[in-house]
């Protein structure tokens, strides 16, 4: 097919003229990845729910802490400006701590659901290798699948969590809570949450997929889940 452009190397491999490479066009890889999500819809949704919950928790923490940070400290108890400032600093530290904790929780949640979803497909990976897939094909397929799931789940998770967090603050402080929510900070936290969700999802999928792809095909085929 492409023998005009790519002259054959002196025959190391059986098979003779023409292409010596196996291939997986990106469009095809994309359609296979989407099919994987569609056909295993409920399994994919459960996996995605793991990501969603993690990011929702992160989003809720963000929503609340942004408002808390920007709520003026009421001077009813007659605190000095300095004391008020200290109180605010403490609140900020507490919020940072909460955000970090929720990040850890969502990392563990996402890693767990993605690891499982790859492990149960080791045999499929072994089969693909027997059919001529390169390790990179397998990684590409899982990358596309995880990327897509990660983006969707992170957006939904953030929307749910952030709104929930803000609503709780509105109940607590009244509608003026919204005044203490700078749009820029909201967008920033959206960016951080979605990035965290996608990166974690992709890492937690691609790492075990890579490991499985590197195994000898026989070992991947043997694995029973």
């Amino acid at each position: 097919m492409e023998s005009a452009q790519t002259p054959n190397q002196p025959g190391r491999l059986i098979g003779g003229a023409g292409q010596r490479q196996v291939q997986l066009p990106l469009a095809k890889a994309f359609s296979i990845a989407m099919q994987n999500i569609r056909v295993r819809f409920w399994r994919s949704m459960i996996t995605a729910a793991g990501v969603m919950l993690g990011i929702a928790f992160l989003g809720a923490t963000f929503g609340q802490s942004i408002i808390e940070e920007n709520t003026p400290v009421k001077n009813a108890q007659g605190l000095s400006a300095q004391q008020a400032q200290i109180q605010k600093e403490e609140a900020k530290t507490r919020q940072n701590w909460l955000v970090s904790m929720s990040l850890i929780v969502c990392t563990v949640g996402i890693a767990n659901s993605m690891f499982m979803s790859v492990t149960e497909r080791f045999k499929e990976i072994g089969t693909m290798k027997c059919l001529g897939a390169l390790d990179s094909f397998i990684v590409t397929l899982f990358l596309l699948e995880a990327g897509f799931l990660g983006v969707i789940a992170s957006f939904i998770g953030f929307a749910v969590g952030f709104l929930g967090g803000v609503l709780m603050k509105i109940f607590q402080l009244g509608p003026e809570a919204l005044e203490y929510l700078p749009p820029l900070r909201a967008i920033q936290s959206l960016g951080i949450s979605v990035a965290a969700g996608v990166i974690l999802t992709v890492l937690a999928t691609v790492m075990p997929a890579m490991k499985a792809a590197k195994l000898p095909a026989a070992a991947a085929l043997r694995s029973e889940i």
Partner: protein
Amino acid sequence: MSAGSGHEWIVRTKGVVKEYTMGGQTLRALKGVDLDVRRGEYISLMGPSGSGKSTLFNMIGGLDKPSEGNVFIDEVDMAQLDAAELAYLRCRRIGYIFQTFNLIPVMTALENVTLPMIFAGVPSDASAEKGMQLLKVVGLGHRYHHKPTELSGGQQQRVAIARSFANDPALILADEPTGNLDGKTGTEIIELLRTMNKDRGVTVISATHDLKMVDVSDRIVYISDGQIERIENREDIKISLGEMHGSGGLAH
């Protein structure tokens, strides 16, 4: 067609040893196997489970690497191939059939059959057309849009056979292809493999302990305890059967 088609031997193994380390103990699954397979032959690897026949199957198919010794496909040492060349070999030159069928569960019968053609760079239309043609050959043309879970074991194995022939391989490796099937379906699968072997001149190597395989094999390689115990030609078996007036001669 291929540069190597002039060679008489399609597969040669030389002193193949495979060791597994399990819990600190070394297990020698293969203890030096020399086997030469002619182009177009139908070979059965016979032996009880644990005899090493599946391990040998994996070595010949390039699914695992021998600890010692070499496997040659078309006189090319597999150990010399890089990952891309090995993938090419698996894609274009070897077709695999497994006891557990190993179809991709999310794909339809037709998509399963066309997957190796995608990897081989065959355009979609051409691969769909050929996929349908292969499914018709195995008698499943009408079920092309069904998923593996909607097919019986025998039907799944037929799809797997169609898939193994997708890129017109020179060699079909079948690991216990009838192991998960009932007797009648098993016979049908064996006959299908034999027909494909005769019609297409493809070499078939099948690991099995199904005695029905003996009838169709050109040679039977008996494997025991990681070694070749003996090799029988079918003609010889027929003669011995004739002399014995019965099938008792098979039960070695």
